[in-house]
């Protein structure tokens, strides 16, 4: 029985439980619901929860535990030598699992009956060819142990599925009876239901924490296995990046860091003046009507997907820079370059800086402006000598946040910066970044045992730490600034 069907049954049962619980609470007080502690609906909800909660727990536990039990059982079919070696055992079990899936597929398309499957023997039939017919490709011929283990797995998982359905439904039934037996006029159903809902709310808000834990755990565990294969010192201080998927790669991190920082630098040089002047004009000069037009227009830039900017960099900005700047100046012939990616990331970050800076400038107290005007300063003098110094910490925070976004930007650099890892000062040369290499090493066929793939996780955690550090620093600066006015 499929898990989805089982879920549907549980849901239907709990719907039934709601109706029964509600009806029972009303009949207990013979229709006079003022004698109940809670509204009848709460008794219904409570009964529904006593059905839903335990049966879902049993279902989830069963789904987690069954594969483990199956692997343990199937391991017995393999010789002692295989069982002693954990890697070999995992591979053997994977094979057996694939074979059992193939056997299922044969039953499903009707080419074999249950009896024929049970009679299958590696000595007399070519099981591998049979499996290939149902699109299950195996690396080697199927051994007798593997076939036996697969047959065991099939049988066990089928009976396991049956027992799981039975257990879940039994638990649901017991839950229903228990829930109904709890319905009394004095029973505090509302408090119980609200507590359960509160539990759900807490669960939902802890998902954010789980995500962070997941990020750190997934990247850390793979990075550790990377550093076991490749010395950390050579990674962090190596000057050449030349991965070689057949082995013997040099994976130096510094060229990637240099490319990332150089592109980020260009992006910030573009984004900060443009974003800041836009914000100053909108906050200090523009009439309310003009502002209500310009601000949404600028923010359109922020709503456009980065892949569109990537295409713009590749098709428009890159060729323009190459034909009008790089080639006449003799600096290079490549359309994808640090400048291309940097300028386009800078444009992407204009609305980000301008809207943050706009908020910050607007939060500078009006009295400071009035004081400055009263002393005879012009608008620009007020902005430069009063408002900007007062808003400086917030603006620094905004610039740091923009830096962190530029460092983590992926699509624009993938399409506009090139793929060559170089340590060069020429801004019209193609260079590459950490994010480009993460995409490069993890796209396509990946082998999670080679340092060339695992290096992406080390790059990922470095990127995570770098951006997280910048964000925390920015938040700290912004918070400190706020305290001054409150």
């Amino acid at each position, binding site marked *: 029985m499929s898990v989805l069907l089982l879920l549907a049954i549980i849901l239907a049962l709990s719907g039934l439980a709601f109706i029964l619980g509600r009806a029972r609470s009303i009949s207990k007080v013979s229709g006079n619901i003022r004698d109940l502690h809670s509204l009848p609906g709460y008794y219904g909800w409570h009964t529904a929860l006593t059905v839903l909660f335990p049966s879902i727990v049993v279902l989830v536990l069963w789904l987690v535990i069954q594969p483990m039990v199956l692997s343990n059982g199937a391991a017995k079919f393999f010789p002692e030598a295989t069982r002693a070696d954990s890697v070999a055992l995992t591979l053997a079990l994977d094979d057996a699992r694939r074979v059992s899936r193939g056997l299922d597929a044969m039953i499903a398309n009707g080419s074999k009956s249950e009896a024929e499957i049970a009679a299958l023997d590696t000595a007399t039939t070519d099981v591998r060819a049979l499996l290939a017919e149902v699109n299950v490709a195996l690396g080697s011929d199927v051994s007798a142990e593997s076939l036996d283990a697969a047959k065991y797995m099939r049988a066990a998982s089928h009976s396991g599925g049956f027992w799981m359905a039975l257990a879940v439904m039994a638990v649901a039934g017991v839950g229903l009876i228990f829930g109904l037996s709890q319905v009394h006029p004095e029973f505090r159903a509302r408090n119980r239901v609200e507590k359960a809902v509160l539990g759900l709310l807490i669960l939902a808000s802890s998902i954010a924490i789980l995500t962070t834990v997941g990020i750190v755990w997934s990247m850390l565990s793979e990075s550790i296995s990377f550093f076991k294969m490749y010395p950390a010192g050579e990674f962090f201080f190596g000057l050449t990046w030349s991965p070689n998927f057949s082995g013997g790669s040099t994976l130096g991190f510094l060229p990637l860091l240099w490319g990332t920082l150089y592109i980020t630098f260009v992006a910030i040089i573009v984004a900060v003046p443009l974003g800041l002047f836009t914000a100053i004009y909108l906050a200090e000069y523009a009439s309310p009507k003009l502002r209500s037009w310009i601000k949404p227009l600028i923010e359109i830039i922020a709503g456009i997907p980065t892949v*569109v900017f990537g295409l713009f960099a590749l098709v428009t900005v890159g060729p323009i820079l190459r034909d009008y700047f790089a080639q006449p100046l003799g600096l290079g012939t490549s359309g994808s370059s640090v400048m291309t990616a940097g300028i386009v990331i800078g444009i992407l970050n204009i609305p980000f800086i301008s809207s943050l800076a706009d908020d910050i400038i607007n939060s500078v107290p009006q009295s400071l402006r009035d004081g400055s005007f009263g002393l005879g300063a012009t608008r620009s003098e007020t902005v430069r000598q009063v408002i900007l110094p007062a808003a400086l910490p917030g603006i620094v925070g905004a610039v740091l946040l923009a830096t962190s976004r530029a460092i983590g930007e992926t699509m624009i650099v993938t399409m506009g910066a090139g793929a060559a890892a170089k340590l060069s000062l020429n801004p019209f040369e193609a260079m590459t970044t950490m994010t480009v290499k993460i995409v490069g090493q993890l796209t396509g066929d990946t082998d999670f045992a080679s340092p060339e793939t695992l290096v992406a996780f080390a790059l990922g955690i470095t990127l995570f730490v770098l951006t997280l550090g910048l*964000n925390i620093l920015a938040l700290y600066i912004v918070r400190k600034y706020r305290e001054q006015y409150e």
Partner: protein
Amino acid sequence: MTDFIAGAAAPKTSILGVSAKMRRRNAAETRFKAYGIFAITLSLSVLALMLWTIFSDGLSAFRQAKMTFPITLTAEVLDPKGNLNRDEMAKITTVGYGKLLAQAFEAELKAKGISTEGVSAKELGALLSKDAPGVLRAEVLANPSMVGTTQNRSILASGRVDGYLKGRVTRETAERDNQISPAMLDLADRLVAAGILSAPFNTRFLTSPDASDQRPEAAGLGVAMIGSAYMMILVALICVPIGVAASIYLEEFAPKNRITDIIEVNISNLAAVPSIVFGILGLAVFINFAELPQSSPIVGALVLSLMTLPTIIIATRAAIRAVPPSIRDAALGIGASKMQTVVHHVLPLAMPGILTGAILGLATALGETAPLLLIGMVAFVDNYPAPPMEGMFDPATALPVQVYSWVTRSDPAFVERSSGAIIVLLGFLFVMNVTAIILRRKFERRW
């Protein structure tokens, strides 16, 4: 005495004229203001340039060069045994259909009296798309009774002919191109004059799946749009309930202590984590650990949900905070429990704000590319995924990823395709944003 008067006669400043210093200050003022105008103009003109390039490159993707001529589906070729048995007919490969098409094309040219000078028979066949025989074959196999009849069909022209009609391929580029020659372009001109070659609206661009490197003319967005739609549905189902639940807890119930503080800092940091990091998380947790299938919408949706969750939580919390405390006090005052207050009063009042935030969050998720590359959605998929539930586990691509994978291909015709795909993507984003703005305008309340 006279010296003193002479000194006073030339005052340094006057209230009637503007002093040099003041002139400098005013000039600085004008310059400063001009910088602001310059910054805004520059930003907006770059935006305009970008949209203009995309639209001028991409709009032509919605038209497609097609040849219309009668095709005789000769029974001897397509059904040698004459029994209309589908399995037997399936033995005729696309090569057979290709020959049939070429013959029909040649016959039509002769019948209409169009000269083919300078164009060899092979080049004549190259004017038709490599995709056309396959389409015809699928059509015949689906409906074997067509064999033996003569059908009037619109056949895709090759990518180069398509490019010629749209101005991308010219006689100069054709000189250097081994797939097309100037003589073939002359023939194309004559075909247009004869009404055989035309460029009608390209519905296949919106419906058909991706096509291989050699046939840009057949590539479409069908699978990508289904994939994106599946992911958006799942993201909405996963992300909105969890996001709203988390916001209610943090805003209404959470005690101010260390743990909630950690959760808050966590959420604001997650909102700023680069999206590619979520891709790494998805690869490690959902594909390697949980063994969900690569390239499937379910994995994409889970990754995008985790990425969008902080955005939705932040928007929802702002919406909940905007509901004035007096509403809560009134509900509590007449005996509602805290939970009833929230469910019956605060949530309905915050709903427009929550919906706006959710739609904007979904719009960001729809345009996101980087994490999807890592979970294998960049793979070449030319089968439609199954209808929902199983379809969520079938390989698919997404709109922005399709844009990227077309750009990386060598044929310049794919640039037109990916700009076209961007127009479709921007269209969806536009609709979502306008919906959000209308919702906000319509239901916004000033307390």
